[in-house]
């Protein structure tokens, strides 16, 4: 009687694959949802290429960029204002987010506290989380619309909008950073009787501190990009100048303003990346 040779065991591939029927089903659902989204958004590549003519006319109208002294001066003012809005928005966001993040940081309990204690601990935690989610889930431009109505045109409502959105983002990122630090030093402090506050101050905060600065730099980058958009609803910055130039069909000035924005964003990106590299250890 002949036996088929047994299949030798094989090392599985490095690329992860669905291992369970549920995982396979989820992959199918994502593929189907993508197809439905093509249909729902009327996505049409032919139409996109058919619109290339007007785009080309717009792009060719931008050249050569307007490099007159007056344009360069107003571009510089716009960039400086955008820079100030983004920086102040980030700093105010950090200041407001920090205490909220401390409250919103959870810690797995090793002991089962009384119901009243658990409720008293849960209320500020969930309230802080809810507040941060509201701040974060409303985009900057919506906050800017609200504050332009309330405070009028200019960089002030834009800065407030950036600060509020940054508070939500920082609060969530800081609290997650605090929760995800290596647990052993925190456990060691708990084992020798440290209170929750002491564990937070001496165990979690020092370990998360480097990450905070890195996240701060990243959100500042995001604020620079967001601040250019806020001008489109009258909330100051270089976006406001771009909008006015677009409405006046002054595409050469638009080109100068757009180039200045791109250079600023790239510069901030480089500085931020270098700073974050130095902070990583």
């Amino acid at each position, binding site marked *: 009687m002949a036996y088929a040779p047994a299949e030798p065991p094989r090392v599985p591939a490095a690329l992860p694959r669905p291992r369970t029927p549920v995982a396979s089903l989820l992959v199918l659902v994502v593929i189907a949802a993508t197809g439905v989204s093509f249909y729902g958004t009327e996505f049409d590549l032919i139409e996109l290429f058919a619109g290339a003519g007007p785009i080309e006319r717009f792009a060719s109208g931008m050249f050569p960029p307007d490099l007159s002294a007056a344009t360069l001066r107003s571009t510089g003012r716009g960039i400086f204002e955008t820079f100030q809005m983004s920086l102040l928005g980030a700093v105010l966001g950090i200041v407001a987010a920090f205490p909220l993040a401390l409250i919103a940081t959870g810690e797995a309990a*090793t002991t089962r506290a009384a119901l009243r204690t658990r409720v008293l601990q849960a209320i500020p935690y969930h309230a802080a989380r809810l507040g941060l989610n509201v701040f974060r889930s409303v985009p900057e431009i919506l906050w800017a619309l609200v504050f332009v109505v309330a405070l009028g045109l200019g960089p002030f409502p834009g800065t407030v909008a950036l600060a509020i959105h940054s508070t939500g983002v920082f609060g969530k990122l800081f609290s997650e950073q605090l929760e995800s630090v290596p647990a052993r030093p925190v456990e060691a402090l708990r084992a020798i009787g440290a209170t929750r506050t002491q564990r937070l101050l001496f165990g979690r905060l020092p370990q998360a501190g480097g990450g905070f600065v890195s996240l701060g730099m990243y959100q500042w980058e995001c604020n620079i990009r967001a601040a250019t958009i806020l001008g489109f609803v009258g909330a100051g910055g270089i976006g406001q100048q771009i909008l006015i130039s677009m409405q006046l069909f002054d595409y050469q000035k638009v080109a100068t303003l757009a180039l200045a924005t791109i250079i600023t964003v790239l510069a901030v990106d480089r500085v931020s990346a270098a700073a974050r590299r130095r902070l990583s250890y």
Partner: protein
Amino acid sequence: MAKPASATAGAPAGVGSTAESAERSDAARGGLEAAAGQAVALEGVDVAFDGFKALNDLSLEVGRGERVAIIGASGAGKSTLFNVLTRALPVAAGRVLVEGADLMAAAPEQLRAMRRRIGVIYQSYGLVPQLSAGMNVALGELTGLSNRAALRALVRGPGAETSARVVAALEQVGLAERLGDRVTELSGGQQQRVAVARLLVQQPALVLADEPVAAVDPVTGKRVLHALLELADERTTLLVSLHDVALARRFPRVVALRDGSVVFDGPPEGIDDAMLEAVYDEAGSAPFEPDLEPGAQPAATSRCDPLGIALNPPRHQHGLRPR
């Protein structure tokens, strides 16, 4: 199985009013009265993870001032035992008394007071890497402060008295010059000595050292154990889990765990090949037992020295004294 009477030395150390009252109430309940004089008493303790019993009906008493080596294969329950003794893990059944007080029944404030009397040292040091060696050592004392005082210490650094104790403790472990260095700049052995210095400042009544020499070279390991022994005195209880049976043999009492239960509890003379086989063989891991020097004998005194160094090394001015 040999099971010696646990050594009790001296009157109960001052546990602080909360722990003392807990001790009194425990005695009034009439449960485990005999254990009230013990540093540690576990009675029928079960700890289970998803149906797997990490500790299985474990009972153990350790007297004040005893030095006990805990041995056993990986997964035998050594780390779980230590986690139970700091209430980092809940128990499914049984009682755990630390200095006579029921650890598992303690209210949060009492629990913190009890934990401040317990010093821990891990294989992975348990230090905060971003803080200086000095601040890590100071944490041994700062956990006893109010939150406001702790915040002040975070911003301004510890007070003059704490700083002096920190410097003295670092001097004692030979690291005074590394006071301001981040612990990440120190070698593994130096980090472990910083952890020992933290114990010196904390002055606990019970020291739990979980594989303290597993991550360092043998010479550094000896130095770390030396420092641990130096800080322990007749009022400080020392429980050390070890993979190195040769080192464990030098302790006056050895407890061997297997499958979450005590399979040996006695003086090191009782450790023979059959016992080691019972502890390690079926678990699939052989004990680490380097050849002893010719003629070397396990010490049999109650204050023996695992490292072949002086049994009662000179006490330093800032040596460990339970508060």
